[in-house]
């Protein structure tokens, strides 16, 4: 009696194993490899750059939700629009929520953006937005890891060179993980909703 019971159990186990194996072989296809590549799935990650008050690392903002944006202060329109939208969203946060938020404006134009100017530029939009930068050798790996992009373009304009750059806003959760990438022009209400989603998550 007990022997046949064991046999049945073994048969069932083998059947389940084969069924599972078959299902995996037939239906499971790793979507990640077919539809996305690494460039489209930025990994984010920690970095250290310079502010007017000394080095700033992403790690020091663990426990806070961080909004990260790459731009340059001579950018007359795109950057102020993005930072303006961010400030509108941040203005809606309660004091408690605001305590859990940090904005980082990373200048990809260290040649022209001094740390003092970056400080006042960030703060102009909101006191919680800090302007930081570093030399190209330090900037480029950070830009790449977040899936951002920029390039210096020579021009006949009186501005001298111009900078083309991506204009996404990167939201990093309380654990330092890149959680959301918001497209250029994302309305303040949507920015606010995304910030609140991440602020509501426990660390």
């Amino acid at each position, binding site marked *: 009696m007990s022997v046949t019971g064991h046999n049945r159990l073994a048969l069932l186990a083998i059947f389940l194993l084969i069924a599972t194996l078959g299902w995996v072989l037939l239906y499971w296809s790793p979507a990640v490899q077919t539809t996305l590549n690494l460039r489209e799935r930025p990994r984010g990650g920690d970095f250290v750059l310079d502010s007017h008050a000394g080095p700033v690392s992403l790690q020091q903002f663990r426990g806070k939700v961080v909004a990260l944006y790459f731009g340059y*202060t001579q950018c007359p*329109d795109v950057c102020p*629009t993005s930072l303006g*939208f961010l400030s509108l969203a941040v203005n809606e946060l309660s004091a408690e929520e605001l305590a859990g938020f940090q904005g980082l404006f990373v200048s990809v134009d260290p040649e022209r953006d001094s740390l003092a100017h970056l400080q006042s530029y960030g703060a102009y939009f909101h006191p919680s937005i800090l302007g930081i930068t570093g030399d190209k050798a330090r900037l480029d790996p950070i830009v790449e890891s977040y899936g951002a992009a920029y390039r210096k373009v020579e*021009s006949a304009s*009186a501005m001298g060179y111009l900078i*083309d750059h991506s204009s996404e806003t990167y939201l990093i959760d309380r654990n330092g993980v890149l959680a959301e990438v918001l497209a250029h022009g994302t*309305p303040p209400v949507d920015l606010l909703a995304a910030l609140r989603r991440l602020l509501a998550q426990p660390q």
Partner: protein
Amino acid sequence: MGRVNALLAMCAGILLHGAVLAGSAADEVAVADAYARAVPPGQANSAAFMLMQNSAAVAHAVVTAASSVSAVAELHTHTMSDGMMQMRQVARIEIPAGGEARLQPGGLHVMLIGLHSDLAPGSELSLTLTFEDGSSKQIRVPVRRIAMKMMPHKMEGMQHGKMQH
């Protein structure tokens, strides 16, 4: 000789008459909703936006600009390419016959380069637009801090369709 002179005078008269009938671009292009972006202290540049409406049956174009607050004013536009926002200088801003050209965030704008002083909200600057026929127009442009309140939807002028992907 006298006959040639008379012919020339007649031609000139006809041309002049035609020009008077057509009017100058500066007369036929109306500018509305002009504003310049207030900028943080120490900023070197800003941008001015406006709506230009052409009441004429012919197209007009702005070819140069000058401002009271900056060393230089240039005509620029934005396009989205390779996932990056690109700002580029343009030679002219066309205003089609009976149509309009909208200078707005994310698109065409007058770049104010080399600001003499900070552009504070509530102040005003003067902008001179020169058209393809040499006529020019001076406009008063209030300085505004853009995006002052929450918008339920995308701000006007931020639609992607306007960015010439």
